[in-house]
């Protein structure tokens, strides 16, 4: 019994490949290399462990070369109730991969009646990145972070990836994208594995502020336009989106502290 499909398994991306190939994003066949200035790129995202789970955050800026492509794109996405993907790289393929990942996990859960393990989800994502390798070689790079709360082992976990689908589980924190290096330096100083939620929000805002300070392609916190980074907190109870008002308050605290150090406030 089929509605015109032949695939029998539980993976959505395989279903697309077998029966709906025309719906699949396939950018690997491009004849020319896509330059950084031609398509929007997402910049800095980070993830780190804290006492009750993981914190995942990302700025909102997308750039086309030296120009601003968008000031408020979203780079952190919930993939299900207990996992998140944060993306850096060519915005179009990145957002598509996040969407596909979310459908993939939901599809598996519905077909099998049980969700994948957090490890299994990370592994699936690495296959999807590997499938994007031809497109990455054409300049459409997708390098996400994947993080979540492992409900069986009762701890927060996070992974980084490379363009070949290489998957590396991190013990404490990781950041990627153009400002990733600076965010990582910041996290190295301020990160504590036993950080409370309040502290973790502060650590995330500080790292993004540091990255925006050193990297022109990373969007800082834009109080004038009211554009705040996405900061998501994932624990055994699920994912909480940290409200803008709270981020603004923390940010003002960070700025005030910097002012005090310089003796200007």
């Amino acid at each position, binding site marked *: *019994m089929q509605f015109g499909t032949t695939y029998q398994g539980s993976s959505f991306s395989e279903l697309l490949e077998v029966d709906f190939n025309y719906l699949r994003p396939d950018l690997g066949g491009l004849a020319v290399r896509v330059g950084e200035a031609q398509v929007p790129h997402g910049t800095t995202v980070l993830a780190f462990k804290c006492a009750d789970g993981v914190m995942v955050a990302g700025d909102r800026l997308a750039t086309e070369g030296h120009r601003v492509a968008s000031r408020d794109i979203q780079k952190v996405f919930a993939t299900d109730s207990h996992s998140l993907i944060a993306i850096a790289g060519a915005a179009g393929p990145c957002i598509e991969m996040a969407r596909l990942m979310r459908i993939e996990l939901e599809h598996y859960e*519905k077909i099998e009646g049980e969700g994948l393990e957090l490890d299994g989800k990370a592994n699936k994502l690495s296959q999807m990145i590997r499938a994007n390798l031809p497109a990455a070689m054409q300049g459409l790079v997708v390098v996400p972070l994947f993080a979540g709360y492992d409900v069986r082992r009762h701890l927060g976990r996070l992974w980084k990836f490379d363009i070949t689908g290489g998957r590396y589980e991190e013990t404490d924190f990781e950041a990627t994208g153009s400002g990733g290096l600076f965010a990582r330096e910041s996290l190295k100083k301020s990160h504590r594995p036993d950080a409370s939620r309040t502290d973790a929000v502060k650590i995330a805002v500080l790292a993004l502020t540091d990255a925006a300070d050193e990297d022109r392609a990373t969007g800082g916190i834009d109080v004038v336009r009211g554009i705040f980074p996405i900061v998501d907190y994932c624990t055994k109870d699920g994912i909480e989106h940290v409200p803008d008002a709270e981020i603004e308050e923390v940010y003002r605290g960070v700025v005030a502290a910097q002012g005090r150090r310089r003796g200007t406030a």
Partner: protein
Amino acid sequence: MQDKAEYARKGIGRGKSSLTLEYDGGILLMAENPSRLSKIGEIYDRIAFAGVGKFSEFDQLRKVGVRYADVKGYAYSRDDVRGKALANAYSQAMGDVFTRELKPLEVEVIVAEVGDDGLSGQEKNAIFRVQFDGSISVHEGYCVIGGTADDLASFLGNEYRAGMPLGDAVQMGRRALQRANEGGPGVEPRNLEVCVLDRSRAGRKFQRLPTDMVKQYLGA
């Protein structure tokens, strides 16, 4: 044809019934099911599936429905995945098997879609029943398939009131399922498979109620 229909009806009548009830906050799906193999499943954000008859056959239909819905939602938007289109697809496929194949499907299915107050024109619930020969019907308030469906439906016809809270609906559902084992011991809460499409939830509205919660609703 007559033989085929008879054969299918017998197969479906042998099993237990499965019922669907609208309550004030959504749609309740309930079946007596002592095994761990589900008769009720999630299809999409607002759509649930219930099947009776031969497990392998209706579970296959459920999976086909999930694939259909996920591909449609991926190609268009999540709001474009609708219960009516899915029920029609089932009707076509099941009707095809009935006329073409030697053995008809020994199953009946329900497609239930809960309304969304935030989507103008889609606020109402919809319940569709598709039979082994592909005949499709629309139901309001309640719908029963499998086992002694007619008896249960006439019971619910007398008892059902629109706008019941969930607790009342669960109790009424159990009273209805109880009728199948007349004189026998009552249906244990742990042998009930109870799911809801909860109108108030954001996104995926399907939820499987754990036995503890079912017990609470039954006051047992």
